[in-house]
């Protein structure tokens, strides 16, 4: 990921963010809105109580086309893709041959021979190269260009969107279809109910403007997107996931589908199946600092005796929790709820506890 501000790509909604007085900054090589006038804290709370609109057009959007598309993708992911019904979406990970995570992504079965993928901005070149090399000739990767991706998240998301696109009422969590002039899924990355809208960059602007103008909606920047997903216990690539980390270490066992465990036919299956059977030496857990001290990424985690047992992979302040929240990797023997640990912040040790994730309950529409 490059944060070199001298060469930043801009996205179709940039002028709208400037008009909304966004503070812009570099993320994954793009000039992105980090926060707006409301500020990160209130943007976070706005999303949890009403609705927030996020521009995530920097993310990669692509079609995987062909009758063998799902089978071909299954070689690289541990989840059941061939078994997806049309209109069903799944969260999964691309794996390397060692079972490490190349990226985490969303896969929607849009039509019998058509998958719609959404991948991380910082990983899209790597993902597309991997897919192009791995795919058989009869499966085509088409990267979508000139495309918007916005997320409308929060308890009022349906109330806001349904008058404009009535079909969205029929969707439940992790379902999607062509509607509203684009592709809409009932998904997101905040722990709240909501939608992601993939729209053509030109015709899609009208719908985005209508959403942004709604009195219960505010633009929300990447700052609050990060605190929302952290409270929801969701992983951020490059922080909680990387190429050395397996889905089992990341506590994403649920994405390894039962039929794929039996078939053992995906990249890194040897390691991942062994880890499912025998456990891992380290594991991702929730960490709750006692008091108000904030433990950010890379903070050392120690046991009560003072031995280092892991590190914080994502940490910060949770506005809905009203205090510090974190996730980290620790030795599996310590990965038990309520285990007391210590965090080293600026040379001082502070008490914390291993806790269950998420910090704020998910409120998806099931």
């Amino acid at each position, binding site marked *: 990921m490059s944060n070199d501000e001298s060469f930043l790509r801009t996205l179709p909604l940039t002028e709208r963010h400037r008009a909304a007085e966004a503070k812009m900054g570099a993320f994954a090589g793009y000039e992105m809105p980090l926060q707006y006038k409301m500020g*990160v*804290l209130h943007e976070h709370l706005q999303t949890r109580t009403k609705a927030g609109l996020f521009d995530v057009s920097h993310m990669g959007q692509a079609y995987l086309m062909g009758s063998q598309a799902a089978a071909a993708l299954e070689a690289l992911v541990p989840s059941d893709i061939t078994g997806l019904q049309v209109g069903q979406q799944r969260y999964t990970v691309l794996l390397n041959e060692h079972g490490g995570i190349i990226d985490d992504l969303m896969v929607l079965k849009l039509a019998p021979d058509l998958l719609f993928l959404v991948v991380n901005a910082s990983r899209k070149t790597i993902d597309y190269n991997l897919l192009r090399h791995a795919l058989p000739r009869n499966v085509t990767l088409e990267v979508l260009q000139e495309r918007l991706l916005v997320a409308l998240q929060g308890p009022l998301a349906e109330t806001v969107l349904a008058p404009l696109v009535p079909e969205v009422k029929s969707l439940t969590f992790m379902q999607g279809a062509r509607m509203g002039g684009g592709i809409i899924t009932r998904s997101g990355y905040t722990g709240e109910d909501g939608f992601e809208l993939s729209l053509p960059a030109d015709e899609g602007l009208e719908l985005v403007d209508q959403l942004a103008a709604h009195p219960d909606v505010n633009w929300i920047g990447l700052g609050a997107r990060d*605190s929302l997903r952290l409270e929801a216990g969701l992983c951020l690539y490059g922080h909680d996931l990387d190429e050395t980390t397996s889905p089992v270490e990341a506590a994403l066992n649920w994405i390894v589908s039962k039929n794929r465990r039996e078939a053992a036919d995906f990249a890194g299956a040897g390691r991942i199946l062994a880890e499912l059977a025998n456990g891992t030496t380290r594991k991702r857990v929730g960490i709750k600092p006692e008091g*108000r001290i904030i433990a950010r990424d890379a903070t050392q985690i120690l046991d009560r005796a003072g031995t280092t047992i892991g590190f914080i992979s994502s940490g*910060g*302040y949770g506005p809905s929790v009203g205090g510090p929240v974190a996730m980290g990797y620790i030795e599996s023997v310590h990965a038990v709820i309520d285990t007391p640990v210590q965090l080293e912040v600026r040379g001082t040790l502070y008490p914390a506890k291993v806790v269950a994730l998420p910090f704020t309950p998910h409120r998806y529409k099931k």
Partner: protein
Amino acid sequence: MPRKYTQDHEWIEVSGESATVGITNYAQTALGDIVFVDLPKVGAVVKAKQEAAVVESVKAASDVYAPVSGTVTEVNTALTADPGLVNRDPEASGWFFKLKLGNPAEIDALLDQTAYDAQIKALG
């Protein structure tokens, strides 16, 4: 003595041999909602331009520097329970710590109100 400022947006109010330190209104606006303040310990010896406290917003932690050298005599414990006081009243009740001055001559090197205002204006 009139209030002085640093280029890093701390203010200091000197009274005899002691001084009160905080961050400016410009600083709290730039930081956004403050959710935690890590104050120095009473008795800590701080040096001019070195880290003396940490102020955290939702998105990041930022150092607060000691404008001058000295020994910490008191910290504003109200900030522990209510870090938002720094946003609401940065240049009065949202003060951070008090110092017994180590080298009063260091005060002369700081910005006066006019110079600090000019700096803020230049930042836009």
